[in-house]
């Protein structure tokens, strides 16, 4: 009785007219034993299909390292970090001034001191110029001495 149904399904099967469910029925019939003797020669076909599906790939698929995206992502993080550290160390250690600016400031300070020293000495110098004027006065008095000498010479004659 069942074999009559299976025969009908087989006919449709070989014409390509069975559904997946009907093909499942055939597979079950031929793989679970109790196959009618006259249908025995179909058994290996359906057993073969079931066995074929059990075969699996045993080799692992290897993919290239996640590509440039993740690497690049790490590079940019590293670069950002480096820049942050550099900038940060400058900002916090030198209160916002670069080495050059620091040097320039020091130079200005030294120059100022030198100028102050120079100007104070200059003032001392100008004070002395007053005495120099006295000297000139004095030297002009020497004229009187000369006259005195002239007069004295005349008397001696």
């Amino acid at each position, binding site marked *: 009785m069942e074999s009559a149904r299976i025969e009908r399904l087989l006919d449709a099967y*070989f014409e*390509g007219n069975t559904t997946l469910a009907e093909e499942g029925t055939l597979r079950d019939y031929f793989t679970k034993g109790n196959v009618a003797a006259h249908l025995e*020669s179909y058994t*290996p076909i359906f057993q073969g299909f079931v*066995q074929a599906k059990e075969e699996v790939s045993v080799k692992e698929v*290897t*993919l290239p390292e*996640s590509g440039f995206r993740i690497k690049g992502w790490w590079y940019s993080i590293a670069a950002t970090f480096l820049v942050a550290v550099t900038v940060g160390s400058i900002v916090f250690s030198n209160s916002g001034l670069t080495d050059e600016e620091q040097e320039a400031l020091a130079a200005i300070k030294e120059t100022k001191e030198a100028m102050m020293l120079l100007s104070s000495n200059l003032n001392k110098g100008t004070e002395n110029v007053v005495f120099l004027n006295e000297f000139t006065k004095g030297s002009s008095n020497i004229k009187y001495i000369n006259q005195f000498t002239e007069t004295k010479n005349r008397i001696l004659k």
Partner: protein
Amino acid sequence: MKQKEFLTTVMPFKDKLYRLAKRLLVSNDEAEDAVQEIYLKLWKGRDKIGNYKNPEAFAMTMTKNFCLDRLKSKQAGNMKIVHSNFQNSDNVERKVEAIDGVSLVFQIMETLPEQQRMIVQLRDVEQYEFAEIAEMLESNETAIRVALSRARKVLREEMIKKYNYGIS
């Protein structure tokens, strides 16, 4: 598409790709190599995978094309091993095995034209709907049904012939 997401999308059908490749290329090693190549290609085009309605069918089509190319270049290089396997006299082990009916089915399948082999593989082994097979093989359902019927009948005739001979 990140690697994890990629793997969860494409790995579930790895064995199906492998079996289709093996059905066409016959050798285990070549089928494994083919699978590796297919996954590399899928990985390179991973950003587009999301655009395909059915990544599995897409991967199957890739496998089919890849293996057919392989077979073509093999034939061009006079390395036609696929259709001669059945008659190969140095393959004693296979002949002994062939007494077992199931191995005989596989051997007969190897003699089928590539298109029919793929259809039997996709329908009778993997149990895909005709619409899916038509998509995978870039064909139409009617042509698939016709080729499938032809292949099944060859299997039946050869089996009856050889199986009966093997037993008696």
